């Protein structure tokens, strides 16, 4: 999958990419970040989250590395790749275009 090609992301995949923008996180951190960024609207189960992460790693949108945490546990940490940023940017632009369209047609108020 190369960036630039038309790709639509699921809300969960996009949320994962957004969560990783600020730096690497482990699975639980991603889940917490998604919950807080979406204001609790996206409530992914652990299984779905890891299935999505697995898929995204295979697509090359995110990378993973193992690190030991403070408590000595080995943890898998995820980081957004250049391709991932591009996909996210493309998706957000698509959404932004949609927002502009909606605003033009008075579906939502200015500044909403």
């Amino acid at each position: 999958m190369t960036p630039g090609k038309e790709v639509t992301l699921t809300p969960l995949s996009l949320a994962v990419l957004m969560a990783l923008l600020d730096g690497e996180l482990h699975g639980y951190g991603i889940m917490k970040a998604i919950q807080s960024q979406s204001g609790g609207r996206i409530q992914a189960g652990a299984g779905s989250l890891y299935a999505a992460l697995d898929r995204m790693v295979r697509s090359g949108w995110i990378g993973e590395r193992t690190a030991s945490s403070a408590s000595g546990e080995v943890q898998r940490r995820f980081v957004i790749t250049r391709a991932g940023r591009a996909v996210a940017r493309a998706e957000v632009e698509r959404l932004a275009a949609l927002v502009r369209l909606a605003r033009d047609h008075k579906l939502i108020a200015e500044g909403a």
Partner: protein
Amino acid sequence: MKQLAAANAVYRLALYALPSQFRRDYGEELQQMVAAELREESGRGCMRTWSRLVHECVDVWITAVRVRVEGRPAMHARENNQGDGMLGALRNLRISARTLGRQPSFTLAAILTLGAGVGCAATAFGVWDALLLQPLPHPASERLVMVWRDLPRIAMARAPMSYPTLTDLREQTADSWAGLEAYAGGASALLRGGVEPEQVTGARVTGGVFGLLGNPPLVGRTIGPDDDRPGAEAVVVLSHALWRRYFGGDPQVLGRTIEVRERPHRVVGVMGPEFVFPSARSELWVALRADPEQQQRDVNYLVAVGRLRQGETLTRAQSRLDLAFTRLAQAYPDAYEDSRLWLEPRHEFVVGDARRVLLLGAGAAALLLMIACANLGNLLLVRGLARSRELAVRSALGATRARVAGELISEAAVLAIGGALLAVAVVFMLTRMIVVLAPDALPRRFELGVDARVIVFAGAVALFCALACAIAPVLLRFEPARSTLATAGGSVSQRGRTLQGGFLIAQVSLALVLLVITGLLTSTLTRLLGVPVGFDGDRVLTAHLALPNSRYGSADQIAGFYDQLFARVAALPGVERVGGTWALPFSEDYASSSFIPAGSSEREPFTVSAAPIRGDYFGAVGMRMLRGRNFAAGDRADGESVGIVNETLANRFWPNQDPIGKRMVDPEDPSDVVTVIGVVSDVRRRDLASNVELEVYLPHAQAMWTSGLYVTVRTQGDPLASSSALRAAVHALDPLLPVTRMATLDALVTRSVATPRFRAAIIAAVSAVAVLLTLLGIYSVQAVFVATYRRDLAVRLALGARPGRVIAEVVGRGLRLTLIGTVIGGTLAVIASRSLQALLFQVSPLDPATWLTAITLFSGVAALACWLPARRVGGLDPMLTLRSD
């Protein structure tokens, strides 16, 4: 904490649905993540934790199916069709509900199966939870501990202690306790407000008991430390139930007076409905004031309960106790010889033997749940196979495998919702039944109720089972490349049939286990009820009278009352004989003394059950005089002490001799001599399972221990018809005397087997459902076999095969599976029945009659279930069948 561990374990199990590669990659992290989530949710309550767990399990299953059908590489291209997690599944639910509605018989069978299995399991969980896991209804109740005297010589592990023992222990083991208090029974009250006087039982408690337990009163105050001092005002605290029943819940009840232990007591408080202490029968509490004669070191009547100090362990408290008791035993060797003290958490004491009944019930419910799951798996598989053609057409038209799998899963979810709703209804019904029907031996049953935890449990289990059952056929369907149009109408894949056979064998074997256990417990009950009791109780009415000391102070007054009463009752129409006894068999009253034959060199005295009797007691209950004479008016208090012994005692004390005129003595008190004047037939005294005891009957005039007596009346017709006449006769002599414990003697015997009866009833009910489900399973497997192979069968018929032979083959196939199940089930049942040994009476775990009946009965109905669908083969018209495809 325990809950979290359990929840995590459930999730760990749920992970096994994932493809193994995915599980190896991420399983550990998923677990850690969910553990962290659950830990966080647990702070917000138990409901939150469990609903989170259910959500996560469902999520894992959906993921499992998706990962499997989509394959792991490059799945993003289609991800838009799916939606993430639950949302996509929820969208499917409505469609599924509609599809299922079109097949009411399948849907009904699946929901009934699930509802019955899950309902029983959830009820068992609820009972288990309420009785064993929930703490007692006192704050920080885990630190409440009983202190018992163990008397190994008379095999009494939980003996009460004396007042001085309690006060000495309080002093010498003070480091262990936040408080050490005691209670005793015998606080019966006489309530006169109703139609006739009512007797209510209560407990006497030391001043600190309420403080120790920590329950606040609902109204007024509790018994306080000052109330058990000498000279304090007599006060009483009422239970919530008594307050509602007798005072109509009147908040102005404080200050009213009721008569407890024949003295007026002022009501000072009412406890809340949750307060149960020491047992559910206690309805009021008064302060325990030890009179001088109750302060002797060898008068043991106090049940001690303590609250361990914060940080004190049971072991440390026990060693302090041992030390203190050794010192006491040295100081007073006579009072404490041959005994020791031990601690038992109050929760364990209250639950007691119920653990075993609960274990049995939970085991049976678990088996039933497994059977239900096997049945549901079978039904879903059968339905999946029947739809394989439709699915093949749809795949050919471009439906993705993921979509089809999603639909099947969401159908399972709809079934789960229906099953869960039914299960909750079943739980309410069964719990109500248990509260009403359970014997007294099931403690805390009045605290039983259906709460949110049980309902969440039912929902989670229903969902778990339905999805687990649905996943098997889904995975199977996608194993071989796909079911194709070419094969769809004809034969079913080999794997499908293997799985079906497996489900069937599992069901048959589990159902057989339950049947065998039912048989064993039922035979136990029959054997118990078949034990000759030695009396003839079906026409005997009994009632207990306790003459108050204030009005019946002398032996003459007591004797006068009973003589008058017996004369009046004997004159009643339909009454044949009247007598009385202090210790009625199968009642709670029991007394024993130590005796040896006079002149013998026996060192160990025999424990002999002693029962004072009056009037024509033997005649009334139907016992036979074997030798000698009955008591007569001449056996007066000032005469020679005489006794009538039972056959067992006569044979033990004086084998092959004439016991009449022989004497027996109490080795500890040589002045206590009883001369035998007669021998009477044996009776069972305490329960049906134990051996006949050594017994001596004493004339009431010579053994008027208390004023209480059971009146026994033999009637010509139904004894209960005479109950109001008996009451009237008592009240004609003394209108204020309560008549209590009115029952037929047979009813007392029946009540003594309430626990085995309850056990047998539970298991019988569960196995009836199990057998029905299993038959349904066999029937559906056979029906599907006939339906899928009808072409082959029709061809054979067309070629001249005799229908009878074809039917026999189809039946034989079903029977073969049943047989395998029976063999496996038999093996399991051997193991299960061995562990039941303790519950059996005169029945061997391998009792041939029971096993034969169970297997024959089961095989019979199984054969019927095999034959009914096969019968249709005979009706196949070869031409029509072949053309229909």
